[in-house]
């Protein structure tokens, strides 16, 4: 494994009301690859992903310990501005949550936060990112309509474009296709394969076939612990633990 590690999680544990949701997590996520976090639901995948983005900050009941290094910099124990940390990552959640504003402003939102306010520049960037998410052709005539008027599949691509617009280095996607129809799912998957040239992608899923289609690297979690992490090839063909084998056979879920 000579690839650069974009994210390294060291001894991360997370408690909610004395209940340990993440137990001593140690994982490394390679740069410009798709890393899939696999595991049955409730095992802590979403929580792990949120802690990488420091979204755990807004849950006062969550207590995080350990280190998360992004580009060798610890993001948990730092004086650095948390908004700057989050800008490095785009987030795609289980269901699309478009911001309560127009399609255009959904994309421009992040750009404006980064201080880009000139109208013609915004126009160009909005178009660029909508194209990158393969949405431009469908919405170019209705940019001023509320984002909620789009179909769910379109909304999810809008959320992807919105995430790309803040120029992140990492994309965190939490079961991004679980609310979508098969065709929209396929479009998103295709997009991820394109995007991995330029981005480090972390994808949570509990669909084995999706993981097999997309993963370069796999992290397998079970009951708040990381059971196994390995390159995709090795993980699917030579699983090392009994639990992994059981999961791959479909007997845990």
């Amino acid at each position, binding site marked *: 494994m000579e690839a650069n590690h974009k994210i390294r999680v060291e001894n991360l544990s997370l408690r909610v009301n004395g209940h340990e949701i993440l137990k001593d997590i140690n994982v490394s996520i390679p740069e410009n690859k798709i890393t899939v976090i696999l595991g049955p639901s409730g095992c802590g995948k979403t929580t792990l992903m949120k802690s990488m*983005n420091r*979204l755990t900050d807004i849950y006062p009941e969550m207590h995080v310990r350990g280190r998360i290094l992004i580009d060798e910099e610890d993001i948990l124990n730092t004086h650095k501005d948390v908004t700057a940390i989050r800008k490095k990552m*785009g987030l795609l959640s289980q269901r699309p949550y478009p*911001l*309560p504003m127009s399609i255009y402003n959904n994309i421009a*939102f992040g750009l404006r*936060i980064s201080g880009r306010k000139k109208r013609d520049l915004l126009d160009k960037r909005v178009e660029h990112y909508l194209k990158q998410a393969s949405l431009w052709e469908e919405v170019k005539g209705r940019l001023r309509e509320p984002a*909620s008027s789009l179909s769910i599949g379109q909304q999810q691509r809008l959320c992807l474009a919105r*995430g790309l*617009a803040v120029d992140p280095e990492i994309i965190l996607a939490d079961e991004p296709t679980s609310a979508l129809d098969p065709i929209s799912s396929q479009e998103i998957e295709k997009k991820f394969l394109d995007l991995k040239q330029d981005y480090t992608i972390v994808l949570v899923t509990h669909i084995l076939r999706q993981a097999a289609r997309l993963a370069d690297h796999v992290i397998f979690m079970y009951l708040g612990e990381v059971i196994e992490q390995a390159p995709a090839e090795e993980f699917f063909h030579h699983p090392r633990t009994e639990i992994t084998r059981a999961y791959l056979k479909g007997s845990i879920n």
Partner: protein
Amino acid sequence: MSLWLILMLAMPVLIGGGLLWKSWSLLHDHALGELLLSTRWRPLSGEFGFAPFILSSLWVTLVSLLIAGPVCVLSAIHLTQYAPRIVLKVMQPVTDILAGIPSVIYGVWGIVAIVPLVSRNLAPLMGAETTGYSILSGAIVLAVMIIPFVLNILIEIFRSIPIELQEASLSLGASRWYTIKYVTLRKALPGIVSALGLGLSRAFGETIAVLMVVGNVTIIPRGVFQPGYPLPALIANNYGEMLSIPMYDSALMFGALILFVIVMVFNLAARLTIIRYEKVSQ
């Protein structure tokens, strides 16, 4: 059972119809426009202009909303977005008790606490002179009365906004405050407007407490330190004589009808907006 249910569904119509029926003789003799717009109120000579009362009601209600609105919105954001859960737990009995205090007690409080405050502190501050029995006193008392009502609705509305929406905004690099300002508040806006609309209609019909502190002088108020004479106060103050002056009973019933119509319109609009809003946000 079904009959009882139908009767209940028809209740708003019955009330409106009953009041209309009782005010019919007034409406028969006077043009509606004259009744609503004229400022001359001389029951003894058969002149019934409701403008002073309608305007007083508007003054008191709008000023009270101006006070209660910001307090409720700020407090609702504080309680749902920032405060530890325990604070919300403490505030719930507080709003429950405030909501349960009877109108007449608010009136007593207004007389012993707010009227002196207005005449001794607030009015001199603004260079005005007043006995304290004024639009402002009525509005302050009214504001406190509708705060628990509006605040409870607002808390529900803020709570119904999915946290993932905030997460989405935060993940784009927005700060917590920026997110609240531009995402949460915008999402809640239709709900906030409806909550204020419901508060307004609640304030509009409030009687005894306002009556006790607002002065009850039949003039068109030109400022918050002047006394006013809102519609509910008119009805409550004069029911005693209403059978002894011709048409007077009909006029007071017409007053109740105006009140009923205004309150119904605001209630309907606000509730329909909330229902639509809930559908959209699901």
